[in-house]
């Protein structure tokens, strides 16, 4: 199986760098990679950092099964809870919306249902570090995060590192 499925903890940065604040997850993974010297835990053999973009459901979550030694997934992504832009919120599996099964399109499979199933079926702990977005520009391209979301990156990184310890 792919190397990342042999880890105990996955950190997935989700979202698309091309659509404004949707790039939050990508920037988080980049920052975590930069901080590897400062935080030795990030170099642990048991942890994998992945820029999952919009392919997490497709390339990662749908390949997890009983053989996977995974015990925890930490997801960095934007949320839209109507909070002040840049506000960070930690969500657990019970906070994830219980969406009905969705079979229309393999491309737009929402993560929520898959995360619940992975938790239910294989006992994998799910933690989402969500950041309230200010602007997601899709379909228009914007390579920059808003200032509010940028300013939350350091705190989000600390929350992720706490989850790894």
């Amino acid at each position, binding site marked *: 199986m792919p190397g990342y499925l042999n880890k105990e903890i996955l950190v997935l940065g989700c979202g698309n760098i091309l659509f404004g604040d949707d790039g939050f997850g990508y920037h988080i993974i980049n920052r975590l990679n930069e901080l590897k010297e400062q935080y030795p835990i990030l170099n642990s053999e048991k942890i994998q950092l992945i820029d999952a973009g*919009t392919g997490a459901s497709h390339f990662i979550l749908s390949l997890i099964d009983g053989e996977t030694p995974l015990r925890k997934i930490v997801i960095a992504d934007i949320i839209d809870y109507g909070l002040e832009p840049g506000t960070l919120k930690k969500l657990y599996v019970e906070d994830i919306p219980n969406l009905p099964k969705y079979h229309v399109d393999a491309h737009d499979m929402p993560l929520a249902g898959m995360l619940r199933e992975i938790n239910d079926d294989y006992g994998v702990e799910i933690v989402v570090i969500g950041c309230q977005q200010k602007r997601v520009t899709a379909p228009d391209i914007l390579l920059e995060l808003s200032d509010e979301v940028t300013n939350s990156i350091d705190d989000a990184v600390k929350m992720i590192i706490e989850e790894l310890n």
Partner: protein
Amino acid sequence: MGKTVEINPTTRHEGHTKLVLKVDDDGIVEKGNYLSVTPVRGFEKFLVGKPAEFAPIAVSRFCGICPIAHATSAVEAIEDACGIVPPKDGLLLRELTGIGNKMHSHPLHEFLIAPDFIPEKDRVEYITRIQQMRKTGQYIVDTIGGEAIHAPNIKVGGMLKSITPSAASKIYYKCKEFEKLAKEQLEYLIPIFENRTLVDGTEIPEKLGYHDFGYLATDSTYGNRENIDQKKVHEYTPYDVYEKEVAVQACTTIPRYNGRLMEVGPRARFAKFHDFKEKGAMAIHIARAYENVVHVKRAMEIVDELNVDGPTRAKDPILGDGEKLGLGVHEAARGHNTHQASIDEKGRITYYNAIVATTWNIPLIGKAVEGTHYKFAEHVVRAYDPCVSCATHMISLDYDNKVVNEKYFK
């Protein structure tokens, strides 16, 4: 009298599309239109002015399904524009990464069609096999590409680094397992497609999906810009091709080669390189199932041929003249995928264009549903495994540089 039937959305493929069909009183499709309704994006425009090295990173985000295919086409186009020739081992590794992507993608498509063709009693075994195959495909991408999804090792000039001898032997061993599974899968699927019977017992019309258009493929497993004359490729707007009320809903260009619609993908590759003559929707499924075996055989050949100590990346500067239009072609899972780029003396992109695999197939799928009952149309769509998110690109000029009615782009 006849009527218009709209199937919206079409399901179990990648992206948002619909079928707009004119059917006669017996339900037979007289005129078929297959439309992408994914919102238009402007990658070709926003890449202009960016450093060339950014292109593979950006185009990997065209959609979440084929990041490897797009990154590969992008670096190939930039290399061509800048006159860079990657070293042999770099190209072998890059080809192997692309094959890994296809070894994941084809079985995924076989999963998507399971509700159509696979009896309930066989599904667990069938899907277990698919999952094992997908894991191997992803293992290859992860190991050689450097990361599972947006492979950072795919660089202009070749690949960032080689793999260790132990990784090479693991890949070989996993390919052996994949080959066994792919053959089992093939033996299981071929009778189903040859019998043309859906899981509920409905017989599929013999000529479902037949068409007389051409096939376009440049290589059996990788891509070769020598095998296409890009001057013969023209992109038309929906307004040139569809009736206005249909064109206004369409979000892709219509490319033609020598004035002709062309099919791309597994069957096109098989027609070009394996003397495969079968026609129709079922033949695409058959070619795809065979291709799993072709891919894994080539993967093993590459591992044999690869010198893991060889150089993987050319050291030439990534600079062009701003004029030369580089061409990158890659045989993605869904077919012939073209990116074109020009790079200036400072290494910045001055022009970018992508004609992705499904862009070719979209207008052809509409035509291929004609002549049979509309209830079978979705099976034609699904046979092509369309990946529409990448295909949604649009130009506002037609082939004569005439501005197309601008209000439709606002």
